[in-house]
């Protein structure tokens, strides 16, 4: 039953399922590099998904949806920033509140549109590359957001490791007081990290409503935001490892759908549980590899004003 074509389809589905998780994970990595813990990913993703749908539905242009989706998440991130960066509120509590708010807002605003279809990002075959046997089928007959997410990982790697911005951002996340003593405007970097990270989380949401499906339903995110939060730890805050992590989850999601479709007699509830079980699994794995403790040292802590 597992012919090479089936495998190809499965891998292709893996990438589609993994892409939103990858985008959200990369977004959260940027934010956390700046020392900000954002547990609102799930809510921001839902908000992004809805705003992207709405933007596309109204303009018939998926790129308008793309931008609006990112902006939707940025709006929630802005609230998070006001609470945590300006008023130095608790980042965990604020993040959780934003998840609840984002999920609620998306459901509330989206109710009239449930079941409505819209245009979205269609498959965009890359010339020449698509003709590579097998790999072309898996990787190069995807939609534009897949290519975007795959390009993003090396771009972020270069940003963190080779640029002035990256060096300073990491310094802020590790020890904002040391960074401030060197004349770095720590809050500027934190706001940039928070908002740009949130934009990507919003784009991850857009992927769900514009590429993964072309229709609006409630509860589209289904815990993917939480998986992204866990994956950041699994990826040790490194963009390339995020790719493997996200596709691992994509694979399990695609596989369980496949097994369900084959009419296996394993309960579907158990199969649906698989990605979340895997989340716990990878977190344990990351703990066993002690290097997983590479979290930015000042993650989740507020910066005291100077006297």
């Amino acid at each position, binding site marked *: 039953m597992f012919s090479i074509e089936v495998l190809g389809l499965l891998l292709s589905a893996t990438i589609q399922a993994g892409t939103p998780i990858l985008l959200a994970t990369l977004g959260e990595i940027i934010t956390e590099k700046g020392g900000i813990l954002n547990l609102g990913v799930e809510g921001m993703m839902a908000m992004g998904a809805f705003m992207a749908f709405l933007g596309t539905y109204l303009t018939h242009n998926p790129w308008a949806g793309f931008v609006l989706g990112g902006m939707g998440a940025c709006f929630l991130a802005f609230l998070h920033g006001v609470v945590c960066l300006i008023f130095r509120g608790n980042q965990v509590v604020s993040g959780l509140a934003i998840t609840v708010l984002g999920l609620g807002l998306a459901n509330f605003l989206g109710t009239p549109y449930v079941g409505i279809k819209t245009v979205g990002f269609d498959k965009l075959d890359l010339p020449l590359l698509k003709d590579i046997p097998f790999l072309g089928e898996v990787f190069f007959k995807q939609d534009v957001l897949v290519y975007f997410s795959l390009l993003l990982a090396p771009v972020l790697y270069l940003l963190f490791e080779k640029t002035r911005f990256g060096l300073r951002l990491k*310094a802020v996340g590790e020890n904002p007081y*040391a960074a401030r*003593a060197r*004349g770095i405007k720590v809050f500027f970097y934190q706001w940039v990290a928070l908002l740009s990270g949130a934009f990507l989380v919003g784009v991850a949401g857009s992927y769900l409503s514009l590429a993964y499906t072309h229709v609006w339903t409630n509860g589209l995110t289904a815990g993917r935001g939480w998986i992204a939060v866990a994956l950041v730890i699994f990826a040790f805050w490194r963009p390339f490892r995020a790719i493997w992590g996200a596709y691992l989850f994509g694979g399990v999601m695609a596989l369980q759908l496949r097994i369900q479709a084959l009419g296996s007699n394993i309960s579907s509830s158990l199969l649906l549980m698989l990605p979340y079980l895997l989340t716990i699994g990878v977190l344990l794995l990351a703990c066993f590899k002690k290097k997983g403790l590479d979290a930015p*040292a000042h993650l989740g802590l507020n910066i005291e004003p100077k*006297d």
Partner: protein
Amino acid sequence: MKMNPLVSLRNISKSYGSVRANDKINLDIYPGQILALLGENGAGKSTLMSILAGKSLPDEGEIYYQGQRVFLTSEKDSLALGIGMVYQHFMLIEEMQVWENIALGQEEGFWVRKNKIKEKIKDLIAQYDFTLDVDARVKDLSMGEKQRVEILKLLYQDSKILILDEPTSVLTPQETEKLFAGLRKMAREGRAVIFISHKLEEVLEISDEVAILRKGQIVDRVATRDIASPKELALKMVGREVLLDLKPREIEPKEEVLKLENVWGEKLKNINLSLRRGEILALVGVAGNGQQELVEIITGLKRKYQGKVWLFGEEARLFFDSPKSRDYLAYIPEDRLGMATCPELVLTENFLLTLRHHFQKGPLVDYKGAERDLWSKIEEFKIKTPGTHLKARQLSGGNLQKLVLAREFRREPKLIIAEQPTQGLDIGAMQEVWKLLLKAREKAGILLISGDLGEALSLADRIAVIFAGEIVTTFSSRDGEKVAQIGFFMAGGK
């Protein structure tokens, strides 16, 4: 031959609550000079310099840079003028590499040009004869190396005024020599070096001029070569005659409170000790010879060892399970901020840490009562603080230590384990702590672990020397012959 000052501070004042840390200070800083700021803890040295470094804002006063009035509202402003400071608590990013720490904030352009930056740093390292691996992660460095990273940060951006806050407190004597050589070179190049310290000998050795601060004011400024004796300097610093010889009168020792019989541990080898109420036993030795393990065993922090430990005639295990353990034994740890106190808790809460059971009202804690009690202790122990709502980390070292002593003595312990009780304290605070310990001796037996021989000899009735986990010898501090040989014992001689 006086040149124009590079920086002039005029009428600088700064208060924290009701404590006036700086009171109308005037100070000129000249290029090519090493200026020592000498003063007790809390005299306002660090405050004054953090104002110059842009870290704190003065309440009043003006700052002139080459005659021009400037406003230093952030570290960035000061750095731009070439004023940089090496803080006592290093401002380094532990996870990052040495070169990244040094270049941070000074990188140019979009891309970080790693090789070029590293070359420049290596040149500086060679120029000042530092030894340092630019690729090492800061967390793997020794304190001395970390300090060099801090200094290189300033040299990398060609700072003209370098401020060092108590730089030698973390250094070995050899490292101190190297640092001094580097500082002299910097002064020869025309930089101004400001050296904050409370150690007299050091100040005399390194500085060209000394400015003495006391209670937020500059009481004197003298050229170092005109100073006749360190004693004169000390007098100016504390404003009262220093009692360097306390000569404790002997007390008749009472019952035995601590006894160790053939105790073996990871480092310890066959330790036998006995301590009575009314005496101070000083355990001296080079750090790392098993002192820490011994303290951990006696205080019950470590329960894996061979042999017998008796506390107040009871076996240690039984003692720690009995209600007596609440008050009979007091421990004054070396690590004041972290082990003795919680840095982020306010003073009242820190006061309650070991006194909870004294302030119980049913299931509740009597905060009001504790606060009243703390106030009386603040007066009794002369702790300088604007209030009880301050966090422990906001107190200076000496005042924090006095708080810890006040708290522990409040329990009226019969056995006190005091670990390096005056480390990092200035002479004034040191004297006060010594007097408090001598007073406590009347009611308790004190085991003093000290790296400072002068301290051990001034306070102790008996001295035990530890080397490589063994008690080499124990003798009375009045035994002149043995006392003369301490150095020999500390190196393992018998």
